[in-house]
């Protein structure tokens, strides 16, 4: 799985699955655009690690919920690396609440970042991608919640389910240009996002995972690497990376 000469843009790459993805794609030889929104130090740290492994990295701040910032993000990537081959839409947030208590801001914030953010970045990257005429890979990070739903996550599940349907549609639109679009659906992965869950909740989840443990960000990143490199004939798919949780 060699990505030498390719450029990958990873949103939300300062921590969690995005960080692991940026590092994994870089170790396969890709130049990586490390996007972050709030944690600049963590993003710079990812850049440093990538450079230590001999690949190039560029850190760009952008809130994916804002289209003009996504345009700027893509433009920065092209200006610096002259091309773009892989887009990983990973940036995501949670505002968990039972629907009866869910405020409109909690609903809207999650839709804006997790669903509209995917539209914004795909839309911004499409023109350069089509212009290059050399195909491309788009990988969207969805969630098992987007397939099966999750109590307390109506907003998050709706956004992630939307990302899955969006990915399938875009796969059909862009197939003729050799641009593949796939989604990964992580289950419970050891990140800050799941770190806030109670022990009781974790126990309950573990009992439904055949592999008997939470996943690691690197294990999601490996599947993303596969979709970004050797999976030439795979498009419009959703790959669960969840230790069996979604079965």
């Amino acid at each position, binding site marked *: 799985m060699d990505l030498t000469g390719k450029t990958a843009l990873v949103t939300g790459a300062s921590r969690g699955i995005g960080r692991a993805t940026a590092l994994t794609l870089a170790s396969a030889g890709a130049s990586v655009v490390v996007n972050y929104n709030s944690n600049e130090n963590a993003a710079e740290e990812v850049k440093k690690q990538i450079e230590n492994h001999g690949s190039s990295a560029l850190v760009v701040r952008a809130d994916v919920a804002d289209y003009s910032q996504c345009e700027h993000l893509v433009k920065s990537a092209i200006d610096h690396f002259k091309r773009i081959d892989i887009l990983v839409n990973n940036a995501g947030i949670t505002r968990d609440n039972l629907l009866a208590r869910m405020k409109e801001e909690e609903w809207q914030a999650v839709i804006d970042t997790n669903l509209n953010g995917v539209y914004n970045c795909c839309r911004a990257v499409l023109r350069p991608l*089509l212009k290059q005429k050399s195909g491309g890979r788009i990988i969207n990070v969805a969630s098992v919640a987007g397939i099966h739903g999750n109590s307390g996550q109506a907003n998050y599940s709706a956004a992630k389910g939307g990302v899955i349907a969006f990915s399938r549609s875009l796969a059909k639109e862009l197939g*003729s*240009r050799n641009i593949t679009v796939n989604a990964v659906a992580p289950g419970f992965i050891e990140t800050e996002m799941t770190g806030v869950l109670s022990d009781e909740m974790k126990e309950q989840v573990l009992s439904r995972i055949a592999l008997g443990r939470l996943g690691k960000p690197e294990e999601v990143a490996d599947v993303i690497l596969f979709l970004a490199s050797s999976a030439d004939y795979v498009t419009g798919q959703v790959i669960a990376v969840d230790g069996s949780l979604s079965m």
Partner: protein
Amino acid sequence: MSVETRVKDIIAAQLEVAVDKLSKETTFEDIDADSLDIVELVMALEEEFDLEISDQEIENINSVGDVIKYIESKI
């Protein structure tokens, strides 16, 4: 270079057809352009002539001649 030549060059490059196969009467159907081809062509025209073409305007463009007429009316 005339608008006609510039437009024909762009269409030829975008849709991978020989320039001498293009006349004003050539329709996009004649050269097997699908909807995404048209979008790519529009993007290239927007860049070349520094203008923005609306979806509505795209609908009325069916032939090489239509493109030339449209561009000439805009610049």
